[in-house]
């Protein structure tokens, strides 16, 4: 099997597990929608659209964290990870498969959340949407590696947000900038740079995190 074939098989496995168990995606959807409702009450009346865009990013990051916290749970519960590590494929394919699957969940959650945001709060233009997508890629790439690290720890649910949030700060800067700045392309470029750098780093270092 080729590398891409391995990745596709692993992603398909994750998506199929989710389709059967329906653990993660409904939770993410419900979470992001309730967060938006909470924001309506948290924002005082007459606050500008900019504040709403900022809060949208809070919602996106925490929804992603929710999905990432569940990312390796099926593997952990059934001891699949040991099998995957032993499988005759490149280990970074495991990371890429997990990243793509998490990304699919996050994009699916946003496919509902973003229209709801437009309905409740403020319109989003194409630059803002591109910012969301690029930031999604970044947070899933970094997050799935961090989640694999945290999964080995004693308090993984507690550890993951601590590991990911400082790394996600540049993504939030890029995303909010793309949404509210008149020259949003600069922020998109920055997000692209972040995605490139951290995806390569995660791709190269995943092997060290999972092997015993």
């Amino acid at each position: 099997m080729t590398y891409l074939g391995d990745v596709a098989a692993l992603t398909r496995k994750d998506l199929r597990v989710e389709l059967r168990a329906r653990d993660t995606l409904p939770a993410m959807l419900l979470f992001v929608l309730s967060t938006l409702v909470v924001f309506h009450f948290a924002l005082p009346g007459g606050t500008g659209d900019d504040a709403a865009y900022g809060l949208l990013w809070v919602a996106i990051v925490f929804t992603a964290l929710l999905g990432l916290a569940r990312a390796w749970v099926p593997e952990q519960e059934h001891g699949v990870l040991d099998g995957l590590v032993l499988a005759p494929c490149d280990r970074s394919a495991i990371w890429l498969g997990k990243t793509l699957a998490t990304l699919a969940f996050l994009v699916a959650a946003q496919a509902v959340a973003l229209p709801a945001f437009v309905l409740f709060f403020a319109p989003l233009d194409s630059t803002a949407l591109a910012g969301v997508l690029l930031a999604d890629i970044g947070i899933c790439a970094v997050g799935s590696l961090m989640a694999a690290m945290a999964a080995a720890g004693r308090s993984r649910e507690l550890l993951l947000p601590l590991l990911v949030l400082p790394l996600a700060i540049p993504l939030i800067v890029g995303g909010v900038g793309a949404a509210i700045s008149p020259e949003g392309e600069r922020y998109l470029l920055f997000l692209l740079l972040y995605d490139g750098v951290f995806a390569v780093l995660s791709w190269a270092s995943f092997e060290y995190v999972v092997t015993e």
Partner: protein
Amino acid sequence: MGLAIVLALIVAPEDADQGISQRIFYIHVPIALTAYFCFGLGAWKALLLLWRGDERYDLESYVAIHQGTIFGALTLITGSIWARASWDVWWTWSSNQLVLFLVLFLFYCAYFMLRFSLEDGPRRARSSAVYALFGVVLIPVSFLAIRLAEDFIHPTVFTREGPQMTGTMFVTFCVVWAAVTLLAYVLYRVELAGKRLDADLRELREALG
């Protein structure tokens, strides 16, 4: 080595002719540079660990990052004092360096959380090493991000004339920098020796018990 530090501390204020608040510059900036240096050293040792697989680098990387975090915390404290003295606020989001240090401080605190929650062994060593490498990549990326964020968070940028360093000021600055680096190095050696002793002792105890 202690002498060098005392000397630097006495020499430094003499040259501060730009008001008393400027004096902290001699401490603050060298500490910040040393913290960067420690983080860099930690990441370098982490890279060596992943590359060569020698377990001794794990402890070296950990100790370097520990020192870096201590110096980072000192940077935040001295920076806050400086901000209070010259801008009359304890904290300002418009100082890029301070914000960057806050992000890094949070990041490296998470590093310790990660380390303490994993079980001792090669896997912990490698996970910590990977995280340390992420840290050193995060430094320039966050710096860029904070610069970019300034555009929409602070439409009016705090402009302040940087102090033009005269010859003697520059010398003082270099002396303090050397002293702080030396201090960091000594602390690094001491902590490393202590931690190694600890590990050896534990091994001996296990062998005997």
